[in-house]
């Protein structure tokens, strides 16, 4: 089937009609079914201006149609810059950045994690923050009369364990993207 088609015209034969309800149940996705495809979100989207891969209207359309795999496995849902311009303007109050968060949460549970986010998650697991605090920084802090910052943060790792994020990261779940 795939080979017979031109590469840039995707032909979809199977839709998952339950996907839109699944997204609507996820925190942030509640209003997705209000979308009437007016295009206001994409009109003002700064990311869409730079990269046509990210088109919030089309992503929502694909969710409503039920293209579950295509949406969750795509890297486009990770591209939203969460500037909330579309959120402010959407006449149907779809709350698009939060829909993207809902989609990301579902995607992660399904084993799709964008490599950039995986890298960030691993950094936070190790250091408790996005960057390593080196000895020089702590020396300076001591000079200024500030307390030292611990270099690791085992509590965060513990949270990862409790929430199941550690399993998702280590179980090879992120490997799909």
């Amino acid at each position, binding site marked *: 089937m795939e080979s017979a088609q031109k590469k840039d015209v995707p032909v979809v034969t199977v839709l998952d009609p339950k996907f839109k309800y699944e997204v609507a149940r996820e925190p942030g996705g509640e209003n997705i079914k209000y979308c009437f495809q*007016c*295009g206001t979100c994409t009109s003002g989207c700064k990311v*869409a201006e730079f990269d046509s891969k990210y088109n919030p209207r089309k992503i929502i359309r694909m969710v409503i149609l039920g293209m579950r795999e295509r949406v969750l496995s795509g890297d486009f849902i990770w591209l939203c810059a969460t500037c909330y311009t579309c959120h402010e303007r959407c006449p149907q109050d779809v709350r698009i950045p939060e829909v993207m968060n809902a989609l990301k949460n579902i995607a992660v549970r399904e084993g799709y994690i964008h490599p950039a986010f995986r890298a960030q998650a691993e950094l936070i697991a190790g250091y408790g923050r996005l960057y390593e605090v080196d000895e020089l920084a702590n020396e300076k802090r001591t000079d200024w009369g500030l307390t030292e910052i611990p270099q690791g943060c085992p509590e965060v790792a513990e949270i990862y364990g409790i929430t199941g994020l550690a399993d998702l990261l280590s179980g090879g779940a992120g490997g799909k993207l």
Partner: protein
Amino acid sequence: MPSMLQDTGFDARIGVYVCHCGLNIAGVVDVEAVRESARFLEGVVVVRDNRYTCSEVGQKGIADDIKEFMLNRVVIASCSPRLHEKTFRTLLEKSGLNPHLLEMANIREHCSWVHYDNHEAATEKAKGLVHSSVARARLLQPLSRTKGRVVPEVMVVGGGVAGISASLYLGGMGIKTYLVEREPSIGGHMAMLDKTFPTLDCSLCILSPKMVEVAECENIKVLSYSEIEKVEGQVGDFRVQVRRKPRYVNEEKCVGCGDCVAKCPVKVKDDFNRNMGTRKAIYIPFPQAIPPAYVIDDQNCRYLTQGKCKICQAVCERGAIEYDQTSYVETIEVGAIIVATGFQPYDPRGLPQYGYGRFPNVITSLDFERLICADGPTYGKLKRPGDSQVPKRVAFIQCVGSRSVASGCRGYGLDAETGSSVGATDPKAYCSRVCCMITAKQAFMVKEKYPDAEVYVYYIDMRTAGKGFEEFYQRGRHEGIVFLRGKPGEIEERDDGCLRIISEDLDSGCILDLCFDMVVLAQGLTPPDGLVEFAQKMNLSRSEDGFLMEGHPKLRPAETAIDGIYLAGCVQFPKDIPDSVAQAGAAAAAAAVTCSKESIEIDPLGPVIDEALCIGCKLCEMLCPYGAIKVELTDKGPKAKSIEVACKGCGVCGASCSTRAITMKHYTDSQLTAQAKAILEVV
């Protein structure tokens, strides 16, 4: 014989009829179980279920039972009493029973329709409703209706095309009609339009003959520059207080020569021309105004604000200028009222991303009408407000203020002049219905006047349902208007005054980044200014959208829940001119039916006051929303007295009476208590 049957000294003999309403009720509620549960209730002699109780067969069955079983109370478990109470009351009356010995249990709207997903619970609830109705029916008392007089005259509120049409229909039937308009002239928004869709008729050319007809019809009295202050009474007998604002010009003497305008030294913004262009402090809104008399704007007149000038009085040869006019209240008695107060265009300052009020070349549909109108501020030349240039590229944006469930201005909309936060309203969830065709018409008019102009229309959906509408829209496409599916997020003003719009063109999949000389916002239609207070004065309900609620969405579209008050035009919901005129005709016919009656039967639902218990505390008088109960001094001290004609039977007095001296007829304490107890027993 019938009077003996309904004598309350007799034991109650009740017939219970449970209706299937096809599958409306029977599809959810186990009708047989409900019927059987009522069989052995106290006083019940016969129980039946019918597929359609309201049908001829169903009604005949009840009539036969009344005779055969000597019934003296009837309980019908079916739909809302709003639909069929009248039907069954008439049936009881024909069968020799007092019509108030009927009790209806609403097991459709209050039960099967709302509990469609739980059949068992719905059946239990239906049983409870039927049991409570039986309990109340046992205690029902026969009541006699009173007759009210009918004043065979009508008041039409609002002088737009709907009000004008309704008045002409009524005047033509020989019914004396008062047409009340708050502006100095009748005509409404239609008088501000240049052309109408889809025929491109000149709007005033078709409206002004009707306005002249109103002025000449001897049955119609126009009360311009007037507002409704208070409404009392009921169907057939309303007393309306109308506040007449001072024109400062004697309507009878003024011939509209215009000498006063030529000499008046005060220039102000012309509100009829949407504040584009100027007028004088003494003015006539437009040349075809009815009444054709001038009016002095007392906020701006030099004499009325500063005490000196009087130039207009000096130049008026007919002595029509009367500075000493004051506002006064006139009380008018009518039998029916038609409300036709129209709409208010949405103020796009509520959506600051489009820059209306900040960018001079962003205008609204109504601004456009004045700009392109021969009688407008630019004499029909489409000069953009920013620099009076004729735009070469014009964009229209649809659904501005319509089709949006999100709130608009979230606190950052600032007024260009005052810098203060704009109190503009949120956009509305509904489709305003006329904007697509207004834009199709205006885009066409741009092309017609300036064939070289580029015209673009940004839309979500084009809705062109109506006679000749789709054809007109296609004609526009043929003329070269470009329709772009995709709503822009914002308008940006460049340094050279051009307006930049970025949008997604859904049909090509491209992002379009285009510049325009002028942008027209297709503003939605919202409920008119002051409708909330007006509805309160008239005791009318509003729908969720803010417009006035009709009597029934399908079958009584020109009526209201209040007998004798009717609706016409956009005050009920946005509609175009032919629909407004059609509804005006329906409202006029309904009002004429009311006025043609010799008297009107009034439901006897008022309070009965036990003077022995009343202590004259005046609580009821203070709480009554209709001024229908007053405490008067009698030889036994101060006592409450009911004013029957004003009473609407709301029951506030009965509920609030501290000594229980007030009993509401047909809703007595014992009836309601019995009803509540019975339903609690089932639950």
